[in-house]
């Protein structure tokens, strides 16, 4: 939208071009990893994981650690959700899940040297606060016994919260446990939309949680919104944006709803005729981008925005932004160790994913085995391309000469296919290629996935049409 981009620094916002977005609206991966998870192979087992862990300890300066814990349970199904989750009201399942989690931690932690500090911990789901605060406390204490938590001020201990099932008093407890960042699901405050997605959530209770996060010392609060939901309108979503922006969360994520009912059963509850048409969906995104820009939010990358004073926004400006399975972060490359059903680890130059169904994960732990499902060791080509995609996602540009120096390749020759694929995007003004650079333009910001896809060697011959959500 010209009105927003003309009033802010050029690197701040998107240049919104509906025609362009329409033209490039096609399925594509989100590149929280490269190669993407569908390319992990089931042959990757316990010995492989032990080996990559050992090698990661052998580095002259072993990387610091990030921990991810997946809590699969939700009390009720949100119909839009494509996450790996289990719906139950039986709270006792939290206890048994935690017990197994701690056994998994006890098996995995000894594989990593104790001088490798944990600088990032993230709890995702599902609904992490399906576990009562007392259980969350046990979890963090258990992790703290097995790993060495960093005491640095910039350590990030974050948790995704469903505001419907958490109280301000719980926030105080979470803060005491050590959490210092929260992420709240909101999606849309419009009651009609909330009914259609089976997630009725009051404005006041949500704002009270944001307020409690501030009061009890959370360093940042993130709010997730979704556009493209059933029965969503510009008026309703506009009101939601006003309400959210007025609460000044430090970070905001605006996700596009990916309707893939064949893949995600819960989405079959959503009636096709209730979904906004592509024009409206784009208009909803445009509205969000405009409102956030007007309210002073800076664009971080992909679906993420932050206030200028937030660490992510500062890191983005200073080139210190990184991205892993948990999203954007200020922490340099860490080795990521995942726990719980479906959790993914990224250790050294490998990816490993746990069993994604609860019975297999439980059985493995009960038998004293690592609950690994599949994985992958990156080849040299994968490592090179993963680095490029990371640069696009975080810095918005690739230093091609640096790549040539690091890998001893001729960029133009090695990436001839990618550069050919980039050419139409260049013609459309999404990227510029001055000597030694490939640079994402403000017009291209909204289409990072499309640009990254040019460097994805695995995309050519597969039915990605059903596997990935559309890019807008």
């Amino acid at each position: 939208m010209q009105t927003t981009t003309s009033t802010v620094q050029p690197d701040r916002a998107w240049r919104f071009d509906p025609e362009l977005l329409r033209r490039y609206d096609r399925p594509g991966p989100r590149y929280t990893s490269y190669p993407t998870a569908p390319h992990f192979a089931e042959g990757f087992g316990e010995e492989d994981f032990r080996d990559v862990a050992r090698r990661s300890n052998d580095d002259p300066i072993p990387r610091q650690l990030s921990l991810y814990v997946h809590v699969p349970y939700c009390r009720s199904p949100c119909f839009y959700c494509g996450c790996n989750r289990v719906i139950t009201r039986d709270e006792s399942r939290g206890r048994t899940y935690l017990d197994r989690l701690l056994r998994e931690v006890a098996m995995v932690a000894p594989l990593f040297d104790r001088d490798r500090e944990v600088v990032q911990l993230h709890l995702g789901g599902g609904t992490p606060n399906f576990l009562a605060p007392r259980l969350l406390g046990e979890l963090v204490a258990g992790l703290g016994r097995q790993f060495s938590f960093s005491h640095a001020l910039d350590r990030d201990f974050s948790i995704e919260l469903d505001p419907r099932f958490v109280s301000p008093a719980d926030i105080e407890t979470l803060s005491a446990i050590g959490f210092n960042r929260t992420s709240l699901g909101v999606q849309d405050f419009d009651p009609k939309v909330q009914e259609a997605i089976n997630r009725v959530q009051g404005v006041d209770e949500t704002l009270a949680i944001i307020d409690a996060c501030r009061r009890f010392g959370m360093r940042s609060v993130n709010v997730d919104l979704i556009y493209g939901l059933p029965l969503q309108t510009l008026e309703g979503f506009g009101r939601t944006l006003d309400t959210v922006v007025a609460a000044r969360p430090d970070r905001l994520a605006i996700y596009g709803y990916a309707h893939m009912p064949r893949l995600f059963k819960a989405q079959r509850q959503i009636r096709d005729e209730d979904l906004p048409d592509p024009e409206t969906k784009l208009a909803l995104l445009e509205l969000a981008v405009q409102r956030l820009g007007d309210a002073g939010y800076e664009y971080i990358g992909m679906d993420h925005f932050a206030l200028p004073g937030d660490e992510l926004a500062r890191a983005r400006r200073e080139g210190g932004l990184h991205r892993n399975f948990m999203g954007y972060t200020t922490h340099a490359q860490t080795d990521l160790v995942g726990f719980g059903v479906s959790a993914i680890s990224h250790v050294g130059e490998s990816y490993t994913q746990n069993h994604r169904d609860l019975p297999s994960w439980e059985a493995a732990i009960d038998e004293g085995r690592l609950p690994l499902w599949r994985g992958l060791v990156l080849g040299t080509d994968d490592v090179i391309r993963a680095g490029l995609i990371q640069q696009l996602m975080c810095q918005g540009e690739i230093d091609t000469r640096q790549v040539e120096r690091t890998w001893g390749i001729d960029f133009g020759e090695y990436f001839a296919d990618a550069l050919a694929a980039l050419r139409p995007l260049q013609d459309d003004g999404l990227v510029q290629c001055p000597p030694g650079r490939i640079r994402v333009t403000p017009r291209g910001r909204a289409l990072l996935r499309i640009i990254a896809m040019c460097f994805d060697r695995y995309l050519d011959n597969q039915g990605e049409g059903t596997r990935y959500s559309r890019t807008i």
Partner: protein
Amino acid sequence: MAEREYPGAVRGTPIADDGDEFTFCSTCAFSAACLSEGYDKSQLRDLHVLVEHVGPFREGDHIFREGDPFNAIAAVRGGTVKTYVNDASGREQVLGFFLPGEVIGLNAIASARYPCNAVALDTVMLCRFSFPMMATLASRMPGLQRHLFNLLSQDIGKASLLAGNYTADERLAAFLVLLSRRFAERGFSATRMRLTMARTDIANYLRLAPETVSRVLRRLQDEGVLRVDRRDLEILQPAVLGELAHHVLRD
């Protein structure tokens, strides 16, 4: 997309695979001494000095073990070899690391058996020389003899170098400076290198705790003296590193 060749060795230890039946490898430990005496490679072969190119050994493969009968010394053509012994309580003691162009097995000359273990840290290629034949040849070639004595004294010097009472910073700096020199002597970069040895091996060799090795490296990185990315190390301020090392190296 069709499969194509990807550069794999770029960031690995350089491999000198440019030698053949008639030409010495560019890193050869003996080529200069032999050529200066007027012997080319085919003549050495005729004298049965050159035994064979052997390998590749894969990471973790043993090249020889303590007590194995000694009959050959070997020059490293590619990769890194670690030598070590196990002490009475079974604990490993790292004796040294051998880079392309360097010779392993020299410490076996005094006895008929290898006094230590040698293991490949990555993909290792060797060039084995019959030691009895080489000793005979050396008696006819003063240059080769001198070269062998040099290698032997270097081998002894290396072991005693780090035995003094030095700080962790000094030891590590000396280790890196020596590595850098050894790479440079063979025509490789003096400032960008791949550390093929695990930090536990470096720590063991320098008689430091592994976490101390990392702590010192991290501090040197924070100070801008060097940059470490996984196994890749770049020396940004050689002079500063040299200053730190000079007590140990006495130069």
